[in-house]
């Protein structure tokens, strides 16, 4: 009886110290992509979010599917916020929504098994999904103003010269 109790207590402690699973996950996310990329070489995609679970779990290990690679999600040191972030070069960055699928430990194990078989991991239902929208960034004017000015000057000169020729001819 005593040994059974010890085992039960130890296993309960084990459950408490390792990561918990999340019931009814709710996510509050903010995302950031730079709007002005004139001075940048790469665009940053940053999503910060908090996870609330109806069963009160706080130490949930999450894994994110970022551009096809599934990796653990970084957290703030106090554990309250999660962050998913990566950078892409200016040329490679495409406008639009980037969905990020977040998995818990079970989901991650399932995705790993599917990836080992070279199959599509989108069949595994994620715990929760967030999105980063990249509307594009300003990389400078289409045409330099001095080029536009020289074009206008040439146009005005051409009009004046051709009408003068038309008059004096």
């Amino acid at each position, binding site marked *: 009886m005593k040994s059974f109790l010890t085992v039960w207590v130890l296993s309960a402690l084990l459950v408490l110290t390792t990561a918990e699973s999340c019931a009814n996950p709710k996510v509050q996310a903010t995302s*950031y992509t*730079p709007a*002005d990329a*004139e*001075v*940048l*070489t*790469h*665009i*940053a*995609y*940053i999503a*910060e979010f908090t996870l609330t679970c109806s069963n009160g779990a706080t130490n949930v*290990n999450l894994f994110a599917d970022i551009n096809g690679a599934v*990796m*653990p999600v*970084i*957290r*703030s*040191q106090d*554990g309250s*916020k999660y*962050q998913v*972030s*990566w*950078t892409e070069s200016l040329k490679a960055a495409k406008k639009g929504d980037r969905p990020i699928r977040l998995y818990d430990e079970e989901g991650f194990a399932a995705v790993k098994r599917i990836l080992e078989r070279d199959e599509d991991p989108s069949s595994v239902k994620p715990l929760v999904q967030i999105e980063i929208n990249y509307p594009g960034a300003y990389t*400078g*004017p289409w045409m*330099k*103003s*001095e080029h*536009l*000015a020289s074009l*206008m000057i040439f146009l*005005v000169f051409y009009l004046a010269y051709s009408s003068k020729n038309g008059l004096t001819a």
Partner: protein
Amino acid sequence: FRGIFASHLVSSHIMPVSRIALLLCVLVWPALVWGGNQASTGGSAGSNAQARLLVAKQIQNKYLVEGKDIVVKYSLYNVGESAALNVLLSEKGFGEQDFDVVGGQMNVRLDRLAAGANHSHVVVVRPKRFGYFNFTAAEVKYQPSEEIQTIQVGYTGTEPHQAPIIALRDYEKQFSSHMLDWLAFAAMTLPSLGIPFLLWTSSKSKYEAIARSKKD
């Protein structure tokens, strides 16, 4: 019990199956345990397998300009043989009086970085002032393996060490589109073009009116 075994030994030289099984179990079990121990601690290196983290901090900007974003990327690589546990990355180099943090967390934790794996973390800051700035290293702390309890402390390699943050006025002088300046220039050249043109059109229309009245 002893009697049963003794009688078996006496009766035949061939060992019964049950005895072979028992002997095998006794011999094989410690080998399995030892082998298992080896596998969990990383094999050839014995029990000395450790994680070793290399962390790079890159500033992905063409120029550093006051009031414009600076993208800082931290790349973590585990080149050791064991997973690094409880990796803490702390960046204290972008103080509140000099920088606004626009996106990302400065002090973060990664529970586990597997051997041979890499990870990245991005922070975006905006400088509040211009001038020369010392870019310092971020600190990384981690537990090299499950058995080793002492925390390993490392620092990222930084580049550049001291770099100028350009004042917004100087940056705009060189790189802005100057549309307003050109429109002002066009407005200023308008008198020297417009006045002769107006004189010409007024005299032209006067003569055309005279020619028309002569025809009539």
